[in-house]
């Protein structure tokens, strides 16, 4: 067993345990931190696959950006000591059964299928190749998705600001019937 195997099993184990903890932890802030561990371990797997640029993007955007955003919104919308409401036991059991059946089916399919890798020489995913491909408009270029994603990010930013902006003529919280909002 080489060091690579040990690294892989370490990352895989931490991904599985922390993603289970993310969806089962009663405290919301803790499950956000477990999600951070999952994303960092995924970045580790990208490093193992030698995709350094993608791993750096994963660390900065996911672990640095999205997790901070989620933690901010958790702190804005709930108390730290508050525990999450759990679904009824019946629903939990049926979800677990469906999920187990789906994962067994998928894993069996994976092991039955024989993957045939290409024999063409590998291209290295260094920053030079990645940057060239990202702005190239030739057959293997990605200029159009690059532009589309930039416009999508701009639209999302404007939309998020407009949505979260406080407005006077929105629904007044005192107008909402408390009986409706605290039902169940």
């Amino acid at each position, binding site marked *: 067993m080489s060091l690579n195997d040990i690294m892989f099993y370490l990352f895989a184990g931490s991904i599985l345990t922390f993603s289970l903890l993310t969806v089962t932890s009663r405290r919301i802030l803790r499950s956000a931190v477990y999600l951070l561990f999952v994303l960092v371990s995924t970045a580790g797997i990208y490093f193992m696959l030698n995709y350094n640029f*993608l791993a750096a993007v994963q660390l900065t955007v*996911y672990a640095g950006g999205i997790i901070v955003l989620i933690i901010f*919104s958790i702190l804005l919308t709930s108390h730290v000591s508050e525990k999450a409401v759990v679904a009824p036991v019946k629903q939990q059991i049926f979800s677990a059964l469906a999920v187990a059946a789906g994962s067994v089916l998928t*894993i069996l399919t994976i092991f039955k299928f024989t993957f045939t890798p*290409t024999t063409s020489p590998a291209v290295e995913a260094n920053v030079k190749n990645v940057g060239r491909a*990202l702005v190239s408009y030739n057959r293997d270029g990605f200029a159009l*998705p690059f532009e589309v994603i930039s416009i999508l990010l701009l639209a999302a930013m404007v939309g998020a600001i407009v949505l979260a902006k406080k407005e006077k003529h929105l629904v007044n919280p005192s107008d909402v019937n408390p009986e409706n909002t605290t039902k169940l």
Partner: protein
Amino acid sequence: MIDNIPLNSFLVISTLMFFIGIYGFLTRRNLITMLMSIELILNSVNINFVVFNRFLYPNQLHGHFFSLIVIAVAASEAAVAIAIIINIYRNFKSIDVDNLDQMKF
């Protein structure tokens, strides 16, 4: 660096992560934790793309760029979703899905 690790073990990891995310999406009642489950699902799909790219088609970088684009979409989705969640909290003082039945027909 990854020669002695089979492709299937990566795929099993991402499958399990995907279905754990679905389990969280089905059983959670809080909007933010449901959003976190969606992030898990997107992340497992990213692992799939990258692993297929590396093991089966190392002569191209398509899976790599698809993952990059999925990460950008996930970031913008999280930003808009959190803006909506904060707005819901401002109006209803709660972000549990059981309480949000105002638009129910």
